[in-house]
């Protein structure tokens, strides 16, 4: 069965290591914070200028001067630092963030990602996404494997305007966990009960299937 949003977040949380600085995009990536493993401590970077994002505030803590990159009110945890946007993106662009998790419309076998613009629809802007994908060494894209119409989002070549070129090495979908290597998607894990055949049928880009493709467990 396809992973739920919560399971996707859970799976990604297993990539977290103690002491990681992590930037989580809007949507499923945000949920990852709820599944940080026991004994692991991470610091969340919010690109508007906050390192060490804490929980949402209580009514008493609510402060209009304290928001995250999604413009939601937040708190700062112990050990946090706050700085201007140039410093924030110096961190990001300079490769100091250990892991970036973000959504996408499409990913292709060259590691290209499209996530910000659908021609013909109103373009609202890329925000910090282009900086994040260009700056991070370690990125995981999270998205459904196929669109609602059943069209694959793992492509030989992105059809939409790019957010970044050649920067994605890992993708988690509701069906599988894949790595991008030598111009192909390598199937590393399957969602519980999802067959290699189903994944293959929904992957438009070249798919490499190793001998062993373990099922994820939750």
């Amino acid at each position, binding site marked *: 069965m396809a992973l739920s949003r919560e399971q996707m977040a859970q799976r990604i949380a297993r990539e977290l290591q103690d002491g990681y600085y992590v930037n989580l995009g809007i949507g499923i990536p945000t949920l990852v914070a709820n599944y940080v493993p026991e004994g692991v401590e991470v610091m969340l970077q919010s690109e508007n200028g906050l390192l060490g994002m804490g929980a949402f505030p*209580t009514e008493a803590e609510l402060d*209009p*001067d304290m*928001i995250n990159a999604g413009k939601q009110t937040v708190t700062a945890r112990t050990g946090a630092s706050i700085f201007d946007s140039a410093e924030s993106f110096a961190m990001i*662009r300079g490769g100091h963030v250990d892991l970036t998790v973000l959504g996408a419309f499409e990913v292709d076998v060259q590691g*290209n990602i499209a996530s910000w613009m659908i021609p013909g629809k109103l373009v609202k802007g890329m925000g910090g996404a282009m900086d994040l994908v260009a*700056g991070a060494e370690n990125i995981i894209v999270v998205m459904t494997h196929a669109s609602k119409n059943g069209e694959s989002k793992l492509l030989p070549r992105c059809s939409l305007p790019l957010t970044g070129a050649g920067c994605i090495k890992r993708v988690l979908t509701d069906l599988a966990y894949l790595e991008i290597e030598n111009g192909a998607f390598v199937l590393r894990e399957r969602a519980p009960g999802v067959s290699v055949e189903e994944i293959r049928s929904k992957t438009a880009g070249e798919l490499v299937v190793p001998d062993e493709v373990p099922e994820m467990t939750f």
Partner: protein
Amino acid sequence: MAGFDKRVSTYAEALDGLQDGMTVLAGGFGLCGIPENLIAEIRRRGTRGLTVVSNNCGVDGFGLGVLLEDRQIRKMIASYVGENALFEKQLLDGDLEVELTPQGTLAEKLRAGGAGIPAFFTATGYGTPVAEGKEVREFDGRHYILEHAISGDFAIVKGWKADHYGNVVYRHTAQNFNPLAAAAGRITVVEVEEIVEPGELEPSQIHTPGIYVDRIICGTFEKRIEKRTLRG
């Protein structure tokens, strides 16, 4: 306002000299840390044909959004816009020009504008529509694009506390683009919640040194929250 006493007492005086067609740099991220009274004063003045550089363009009826109502903005340089219907309409009608810029590149362009760096290379945007028409160069096997600095005729900035020398500190994440706009404005105007006595701000804890600031005004702020999100 004389010598190092940069205080002005009215918003009219704060924006004296602002003219049609100028470029205005505005601090703020979303509705957080925006110079709300200076924006309101631009509306009151009716200045038109402005190029506005700001990460976002406010919402309908608040923040930079109010400048759309009388079509005062000709061009917007931002990373994320369209939180308001009027913006969308003017854009589709061709009444408004938009130059979308990645958030980090926008921050760095302003920083460069204040720091006398006319252009810099960044990997951000390489291979995307943002790179169109821009020089590409390889350094150590990676591709980068050349981006140019931004500076403005006016910078409008929201601080927390300032002294009369124009030294400013910002509160929490209301810092965001404010110090960058402050340094890149030819005339920089900062509105703050409190003007403190000289010597009260610790020198090594000042976010914007007074050298960047031309005028300081004390205001009162609504500080509207865009996405009120509470713990469950």
